[in-house]
């Protein structure tokens, strides 16, 4: 099939950036979207032009490295997907596709379709963990966790940190990402002692990064490659208010 690609090109953070249009023939329907871009890049290099820079690594939708916006939708039109697992058979011959990087103040531009997501790192480091010193753990089966609870934690732990939630939020909010981390650890008994501190620290860090506010658009959930639920955001809000108002006094215990 034949495609027209309108791709954002920007040399570095200081460059203004612009759209460049490319025509691509002979796109096989078996290709993934990134393989299609590989083909484009090979052609560009052979023509003596600079290839389109895009982030990618595992290409099996788990590392969370890849991602850009295709025709206004983060990771493209297929639900529960990343661009590396988006297949060309879901497009039509002659499609015109506009490719843009994640756009958010908190994700500064790096090059072309690559942005800097280190804001996520700083949020995680503020408190997105359980401090379990190596060697101090009790026998694994001494902590019983009902299956449903472990599964609920896992539903949130599936977040791959790709940033699509920020990219597709009309407000540029990072609530789904932060909520997922807080809910993952908050569902587990091991996560209770630091639950209040975690919520306070992570929310404070998030606010510092310049992400937008949540106004419950729910487009984050709709574009999340792992289908992480906005219930995580409610959990985060609850933990945060509890921590701020009552020092976390009524957190912990059953959830």
């Amino acid at each position, binding site marked *: 099939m034949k495609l027209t690609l*309108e791709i954002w090109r920007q040399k570095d953070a200081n460059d203004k950036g612009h*759209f460049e249009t490319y025509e691509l023939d002979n796109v096989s329907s078996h290709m993934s979207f990134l393989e299609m871009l590989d083909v484009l890049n090979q052609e560009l290099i052979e023509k003596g032009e600079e290839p389109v820079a895009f982030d990618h690594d595992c290409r099996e939708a788990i590392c969370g490295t890849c991602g850009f*916006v295709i*025709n*206004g*939708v*983060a990771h493209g*039109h297929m*639900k529960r997907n990343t661009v590396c697992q988006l297949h060309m058979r879901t497009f039509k011959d002659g499609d015109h596709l*506009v490719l*843009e990087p994640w*756009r*958010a*103040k*908190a994700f500064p531009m790096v090059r072309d379709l690559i942005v800097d997501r280190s804001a996520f790192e*700083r949020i995680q480091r*503020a408190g997105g963990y359980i401090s379990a010193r190596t060697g101090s753990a009790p026998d694994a089966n001494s902590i019983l966790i009902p299956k449903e609870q472990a599964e609920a934690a896992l539903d949130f732990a599936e977040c791959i940190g790709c940033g699509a939630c920020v990219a*597709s*939020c*009309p*407000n*540029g*909010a990072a609530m789904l990402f932060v909520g997922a981390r807080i809910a993952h650890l908050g569902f587990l008994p091991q996560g209770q002692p630091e639950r209040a501190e975690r919520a*306070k*620290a992570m*929310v*404070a*860090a998030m*606010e*510092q990064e*310049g*992400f*937008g*506010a*949540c*106004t*419950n*658009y*729910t*487009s984050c*959930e*709709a*574009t999340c490659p792992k289908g992480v639920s*906005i*219930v995580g*955001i*409610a*959990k*985060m*809000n*609850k*933990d*945060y*208010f509890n921590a*701020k*108002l009552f020092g976390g006094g009524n957190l912990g215990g059953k959830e």
Partner: protein
Amino acid sequence: MEKDVGLYGSTLGKKALMAITGIILFFYLVGHMLGNLQIFLDPAQIDKYAHLLHASAAFLWSVRLVLLFCLGVHILAAFQVWWRSRTARPVKYKVFNPPDVDYAAKTMVWSGPIIAAFLVYHLLHLTVGSVHPDYVHLGAYNNVIAGFQQTPVAIAYIVALLLLAFHLYHGLWSLFQTMGWDHPKFGPWRRPLAVLLTVVIAAGFISVPVAVMTGVLQLVGG
């Protein structure tokens, strides 16, 4: 270490304040609507009710002040949240079609200001009476009917009330999310509940101008 922005400094805190003030305003609306519906009883009933509300100036003004305060906080926080989100994406997308965006959520940004403007008009119209053709202090029954007998006014009310319904629907649904009131058993019922409450309130309010326009309610001699 991150600088702690404080509870109100965070967007979460601002949203919570919007939710809490929203709840108070919502309860006021419920009372307001129930009061309005007395118009379908004996014409004297609603005038009596108006007198009752005005019996104690202290009571009346404390309620008004609380409402004004809630409204102020609601609007201020909304403005700050909106501004924050506006600046969170300095470079806009060329094409932006986020899927599954809640329609009501999209309308909040402009439904809010329009409702605020309508509120000013409504107060001048039926509380102060300065934009009313035939205003009589505490003559609630005739004030309402005479007011709505002007068709453009009645239509404006209906439109504004429909907007309010959207606003309420989104607000009612999302306040559970914002406040973190979530439970696996209750979660799926949040939206239907919001729809139900919204429909009841909107229907209650809108029934009055509709009744006037259709002639169900008529002026009484005086």
